[in-house]
């Protein structure tokens, strides 16, 4: 029995106490509970927590496998034929069948290295990244909508999907990949942090504090669970309410992990770019020219204004995003904003900020200010009076009056303050431009009885949505007007260049804020706070040794380092096991996200450790490990059943044969499109939709009846809606994007048969395939080559031709697209 850690990871100081508790299964619960009370660290003899074996009985996959096969009295099957092999390799690693030409080339390739070269070519294909990404996105519960009842879309979330595809294609070292997921913001890879917030997010907020706290707990639990299962193969989430029943994870560990993520928030933001000396220089030049152009334009505007005669200068018209009212500092305890007219419907304000001399917003509820109103629109948690002065902006945190076109709000400050500026807006996110107060008064009062006008819409230019901000041009002579037009164009151009240099694009990635204290919660109840906990990881492996007030980013970086240290016994084992599963359909540990005592034992523990060490020794290169797997004899064995062997090892876990399996939903759809010749292989960018979207407060999704070339891209580029499943392929065990899915179910159902046999999609592709075959010498022969990568037998030829004679080529294609041979990897 061994105790951990033996590694150079910092040994928790408390572990140095003489008393160690060794845990065995059912005693564990009480053991751990007792341990925490006494402040004693945990230890375990469970295999996956032990350091990787440093000495190996073999080198190379086949040597390990052969030893195990011999031990079971199993004889490995022969090598599969070349056509089967290339089809297998393409389907497994690219999710697409090879073209008949590819097959022929490989069959005739006499080089002794033909297979190795083919493997290299496949791993170099950009479609490799697409294929791996599907698995990774399942594992990271990625989807492009918020989930829960509102289920709104995340239009920029696809950037994380593209980042994952690209990372696989570049063969980004796996340790780097993990670090970018957890702390990409510190590593110039912001988009990686899309991982943290890829899960569901409940946007329905309520004034009920219990609900709000519980929602936040659930958000953090999702980050902890996903981090734990995806990278460590540990069900850390089990320790939310009590110490883990089976694994050495205490409740304190759970809340320490929570402290790591405590500052992570959901949302969309511009992804920052790294500043380079070059971009800095460019920026300086751009700013300079912007100032010059603006000054020039100002002069021209002044000329135009003079020509307008005596009309007094008006302030700009109101707008949705931000309106400022500035006046001489006036002592006040109350502000009242009266709306007399809007551009449409009941007025909406997302924030009303009142600034005192010195810059403090005295209207914030946090500072003790109290809001009242003439009446509030009922029934929308996102539209509440409390949102008027909560410091949060955007439509989702706004106030709406209960009367069309009218209403007032009033804020009483905590004390009389000299106020000098008011900022108000309808939607600072700029998504909504309705419900704007276009005719309004703002008054101030010290006692709430006597009011003085501070600002109003009277001196603003009239609000007109279509108003041309460049109306002044008409007042200028032709030469001056042309000059002004050029200046306007150049200012716009310069501004967008500056924005491009400073901000990257917008993406749904993690947002960060300063975390408050994190406490252990008794039974997971947010109202039952216990002791404060520092940010930390699983102490049984080693502590992060961080202070309570460690800055937010440093917490995540520390965790990322801890996960990717070579001494961490879990990370590499879990990773190579996933690759093994990806290639062979089932892992060496067949509970790929549970390496704890509730999971199963590895069938080949020595092999797993050898692969894990080799993986790290080769710079955490996934392509390196995959190359080993694909070049193994095991991968190249025939998949033919053998009743003698099956009696000993029915699931082929010892790989006496290559285990056949059904393709997943995406690979089926992609293969159908590829066969029909309709597949659009364009990579990256916003996804395609298979739903008509009906955007109410709650978004509804209705499956599209008809698809066309725009939807005939690879399924990885499907705009992935949480919960809702594609009407044809959803039935093939597509994950719904809510839970970590390390292995897809492969169920067989009559609904799958109905969808694949009768859907408009299948019929359309059958028609396209028929058109493609019609032009060939023998449509049947070509059909078998295209769909199965093998020639038809005499019996098949005869049967097919008779069938086509009676029922036509389209029906033949419809049937063939439904056959098992087309839909399975053999």
């Amino acid at each position: 029995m061994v105790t951990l850690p033996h590694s150079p990871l910092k040994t928790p100081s408390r572990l140095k106490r003489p008393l160690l508790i060794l845990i065995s299964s059912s005693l564990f619960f009480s053991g751990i509970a007792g341990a925490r009370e006494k402040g004693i660290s945990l230890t375990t003899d469970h295999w996956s927590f032990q350091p990787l074996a440093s000495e190996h009985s073999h080198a190379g996959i086949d040597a390990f496998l052969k030893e195990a096969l011999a031990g079971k009295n199993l004889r490995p099957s022969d090598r599969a034929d070349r056509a089967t092999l290339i089809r297998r390799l393409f389907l497994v690693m690219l999710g697409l069948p090879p073209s008949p030409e590819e097959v022929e080339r490989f069959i005739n390739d006499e080089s002794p290295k033909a297979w190795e070269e083919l493997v290299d070519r496949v791993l170099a294909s950009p479609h490799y990244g697409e294929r791996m990404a599907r698995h990774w996105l399942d594992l990271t519960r990625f989807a492009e909508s918020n989930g829960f009842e509102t289920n709104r879309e995340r239009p920029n979330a696809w950037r994380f999907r593209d980042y994952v595809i690209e990372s696989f294609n570049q063969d980004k070292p796996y340790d780097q990949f993990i670090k970018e997921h957890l702390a990409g913001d510190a590593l110039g890879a912001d988009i990686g942090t899309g991982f943290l917030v890829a899960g569901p997010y409940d946007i329905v907020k309520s004034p009920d504090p219990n609900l709000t706290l519980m929602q936040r707990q659930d958000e953090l639990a999702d980050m902890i669970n996903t981090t734990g299962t995806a990278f460590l193969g540990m069900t850390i989430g089990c320790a939310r309410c009590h110490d883990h029943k089976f694994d050495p994870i205490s409740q304190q560990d759970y809340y320490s992990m929570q402290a790591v993520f405590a500052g992570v928030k959901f949302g969309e933001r511009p992804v920052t770019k790294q500043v380079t000396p070059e971009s800095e220089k460019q920026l300086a030049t751009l700013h300079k020219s912007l100032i010059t152009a603006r000054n020039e334009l100002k002069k021209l505007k002044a000329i135009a204004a003079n020509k307008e005669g005596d009309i007094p200068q008006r302030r700009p018209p109101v707008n949705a995003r931000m309106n400022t009212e500035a006046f001489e500092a006036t002592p006040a305890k109350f502000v009242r904003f009266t709306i007399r007219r809007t551009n449409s419907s009941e007025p909406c304000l997302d924030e009303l900020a009142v600034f005192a001399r010195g810059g403090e917003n005295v209207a914030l509820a946090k500072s003790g200010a109290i809001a009242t109103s003439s009446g509030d629109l009922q029934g929308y948690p996102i539209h509440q009076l409390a949102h008027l002065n909560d410091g949060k902006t955007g439509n989702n945190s706004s106030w709406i009056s209960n009367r069309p076109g009218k209403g007032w709000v009033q804020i009483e400050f905590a004390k009389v303050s000299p106020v000098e500026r008011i900022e108000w807006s309808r939607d600072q996110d700029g998504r909504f431009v309705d419900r704007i107060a276009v005719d309004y008064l703002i008054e101030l009062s010290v006692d709430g009885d006597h009011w003085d006008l501070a600002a109003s819409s009277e001196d603003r230019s009239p609000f007109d949505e279509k108003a041309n901000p460049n109306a002044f041009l008409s007042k200028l002579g032709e030469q001056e007007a042309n000059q002004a037009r050029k200046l306007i164009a150049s200012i716009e151009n310069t501004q967008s260049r500056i924005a491009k240099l400073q901000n990257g694009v917008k993406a749904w990635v993690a947002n960060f804020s300063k975390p408050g204290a994190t406490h252990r919660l008794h039974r997971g109840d947010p109202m039952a706070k216990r002791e404060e906990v520092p940010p930390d990881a699983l102490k049984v492996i080693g502590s992060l040794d961080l202070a309570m007030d460690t800055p937010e980013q440093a917490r995540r970086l520390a965790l990322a380092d801890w996960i990717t240290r070579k001494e961490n016994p879990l990370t590499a084992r879990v990773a190579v096991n996933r690759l093994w599963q990806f290639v062979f359909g089932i892992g060496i540990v067949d509970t790929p996200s549970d390496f704890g005592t509730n999971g199963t034992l590895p069938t080949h523990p020595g092999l797993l450790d050898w692969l894990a060490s080799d993986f790290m020794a080769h710079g955490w290169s996934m392509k390196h490990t995959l190359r080993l797997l694909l070049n193994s004899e095991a991968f190249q064995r025939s998949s033919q059943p053998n009743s003698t062997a099956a009696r000993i090892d029915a699931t082929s876990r010892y790989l006496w044969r290559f285990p056949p399996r059904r393709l997943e939903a995406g690979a089926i759809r992609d293969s159908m499109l590829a066969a029909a010749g309709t597949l659009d292989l364009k990579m990256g960018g916003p996804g395609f939709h298979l739903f008509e979207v009906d955007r109410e407060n709650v978004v509804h999704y209705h499956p599209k009846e008809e698809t066309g070339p725009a939807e005939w891209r690879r399924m990885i580029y499907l705009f992935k809606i949480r919960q809702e499943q594609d009407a044809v392929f959803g039935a093939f065990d597509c994950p719904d994007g809510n839970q970590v899915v390390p292995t897809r179910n492969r169920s067989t159902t009559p609904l799958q048969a109905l969808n694949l046999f009768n859907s408009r999609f299948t019929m359309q592709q059958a028609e396209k395939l028929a058109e493609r075959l019609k032009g060939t010498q023998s449509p049947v022969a070509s059909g078998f080559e295209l769909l199965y990568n093998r020639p038809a037998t005499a019996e098949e030829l005869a049967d097919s031709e008779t069938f086509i004679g009676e029922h036509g080529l389209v029906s033949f294609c419809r049937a063939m697209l439904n056959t098992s041979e087309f839909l399975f990897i053999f």
Partner: protein
Amino acid sequence: MIDPRHLLDRRNFLSHSVSGLGGVALASLLGREGLLGAGRLRESAAGKMPIRPSIDPAYPHAPRIPHTEPRAKQVLMIFCSGAISQVDTWDFKPELIKRHGQPMPGGDKLITFQGQQGNLMKSPWEFKPRGQSGKMVTDLLPRLGNLADEMCFLHGMTGKTNTHGPGENFMCTGFTLDGFPSAGAWTTYALGSEADDLPAYVAIPDVRGTPQSSVNCWGPGFLPAAFQGTSFNAAKPVRNLSIPNGITGTTDAATRAFLQRQNHRHLQNHVGDSQLAARIASYELAARMQLSIPEITDLNSEPDYILREYGADESGNKILDLRAAYGRNCILARRLIERGVRFVQLFSGAYQTGGEGVSNWDGHKKIKEQYDIHGPVLDQPTAALLKDLKSRGLLEDTLVVFCSEFGRMPTFQKGASGRDHNPDGFTAWLAGAGVKAPFSYGATDEFSHKAVEGVTSVYDFYATILHILGLDHERLSFYHNGIERRLTDVHGGVIKEILA
């Protein structure tokens, strides 16, 4: 080559294809296909060994034996989406009537989902004694009220959340988060189905659209897709069920026969591979469904008096149209139960067309106006369904469950004439096989705000339902991501008091 005529004969087909190594491969294949899940079986916290049903991948819906002698074999769940008010239906509180218009003690400090409370408000519909038992039910649902003697009320229901999405998730899946299997999926996973040419589990959404949690309510979560609810109603058929446009029946049948010949030829090289055999079988079942589902959704064979009874024969105004549409769904539900479908889930209310309160039970603003539409739509058809099931002897084996994601407040919301969400005390009822009736269990406080007696969690609720089906809620499990998952998480106990 196999004679295509044989293809529609399942038993004959079985003897052809599942032979040789099939038997051996079967058990172990299950593990790989995730039907059983992997992971080591070990005792649960309750000291019980999990039971993962043994499933034939070729026939995942084959009937399976429960853990103990069942009292009911089928479930009909009537789900009122949007949170039906117990205050205005089943939960009679004389004190609320007495203190009508007065502030609720402590109400000023109470923040519910949408905020502050107004005063206590008695129901605008009068409570009257119903049936032999004299159970008090309001005039909102008079016909259902008259069947109170058939019902076993759970007045002390409690939820965990006061938002609809998580609430409906909780009531349908036992978890507030998205992504967990629905109760119907758990039931079919455990028991399969008696109906071999219909889906084992059917969800009948309201004609106006889906409930707030949409497909989560009948989703498979992490269970294999075989156990998800198939959703259709009397107005909207199953997708991809009919023969594609432009294809004749003869060609369709011939195409399937050709497909199966090709699959069989291929199977000869993979003798005994049960995944392949399962696919062949699934096309046979699909073919049978293609006949049986249109047959079951075609209500033309129903006599006039049935249509009348269910309110499905009248139309002409909004209420009548909606009632007729819901009535037709109720008839469909009975037909499915009659045919042995294991779990039927019938929805009243949708979020799709009008949001809050307009087409579902979410009565925040003007509850009187809103429920004056929903009440009559629900009442007659549901009552007819219950009576019809009884007269056909179907209640002998069917457990009827009436529920909603949570209840509503005994106060009106401040500034509105409707009620806010209330997960702290609400009512569900059961009827039919396995439960006492007439019977009332549990109670809320004097106003119908908080459950105080026989407090029933959603876990208790499902522990009891599973128990009636002969299933031990602590043992029925599926291994997922390191956890032996249950419908009741790690909670719940059977409410013995209500068992017949």
